[in-house]
């Protein structure tokens, strides 16, 4: 990614570039979070929300309902890699629960049971 701060918010006047509030990290250690991984704010996050730094607070507020890593990236106007780092930090601090996909067939797909439920859900719309 570039380091010229062009991922700063266009409105609201963030002047600190995205890499600064992830302390230079553009990826999290360990397993990459899938783009579609869902997060929900914990009770701890709700309690401590006013004391959190701005980006964390925004994420906690978004995650009052299930929100994916990719949605957080879009809302903060940062690349997905930055969103991954922020989400990882918040999860490790106990502020977010992360809900990962559940690969169940040989190719890592969702498997028969989940596909059946997906089909039912789509048909019911």
């Amino acid at each position, binding site marked *: *990614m*570039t*380091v010229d701060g062009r991922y700063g918010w266009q409105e609201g006047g963030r002047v600190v570039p995205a890499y600064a509030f992830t302390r*230079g*990290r*553009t*990826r*999290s*250690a*360990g*397993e990459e979070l*899938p*783009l*579609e*991984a*869902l997060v*929900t704010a*914990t*009770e*701890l996050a709700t309690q401590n929300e006013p004391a959190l730094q701005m980006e964390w607070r925004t994420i906690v507020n978004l995650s009052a309902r*299930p929100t*994916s890593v*990719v*949605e957080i*990236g*879009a*809302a903060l106007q*940062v*690349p*997905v*890699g930055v969103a991954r780092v922020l989400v*990882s930090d*918040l*999860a*490790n*601090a*106990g502020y*977010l*629960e*992360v*809900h*990962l*996909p*559940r*690969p169940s067939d*040989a*190719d*890592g*797909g*969702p498997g028969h049971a*989940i*596909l*059946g*439920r*997906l*089909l039912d*859900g*789509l*048909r019911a*719309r």
Partner: protein
Amino acid sequence: MDYAPARAGRPIGRPVGRRGPAAKRELIPLKILVAGGFGVGKTTFVGSLSEIPPLSTEQEMTALSVGVDDAAAVPGKTTTTVAMDFGRITVDHQLILYLFGTPGQHRFWFMWDELARGAVGAVVLVDLRRVDDSFAAIDYFEDRRLPFAVAVNQFPGTPAFPEATVRDALAIPPACPLVLMDARDPRSSLDTLVALVEHALARSATP
């Protein structure tokens, strides 16, 4: 950071004592790729289905294998970003489906690899006036054994061809659904998703 020990589907992060497991909602994210050439209607398709206005995000070109620090150590290596559209459908109290519109060009296949991993399947949108744009996507999903449906987006003025002719021209495997649709119409787009998931479900039953 330790995601590895966490079992898939289980909430991770520090346990929060006041909320027992019973209070937790088990959520399962799902994804479907929407592929096709430039201007074929990917964003329109995602927008006609999504419960949120279609959003765009940036994906780093080298994010999967090389971080910014590593890139600095590789002379001449540059990192760029690619915009990607996505939408969301809450299917039921547990399942949330994401639709990812993926750039069709070969040079973006590094993104497809990540997106295809664990996906339900893919919709390949086709403009019959420019079928060449679809071959790369069809080949890719066939190679990866990812279930896919071919959706012919019927632009006004699109010539009508018999299904067999279209299948032939695009070299679509017999089992793969072919749908004639209008990406602007939510019902038509939903029918396309249903055709894909029916296909994926049938395939998951036959190992």
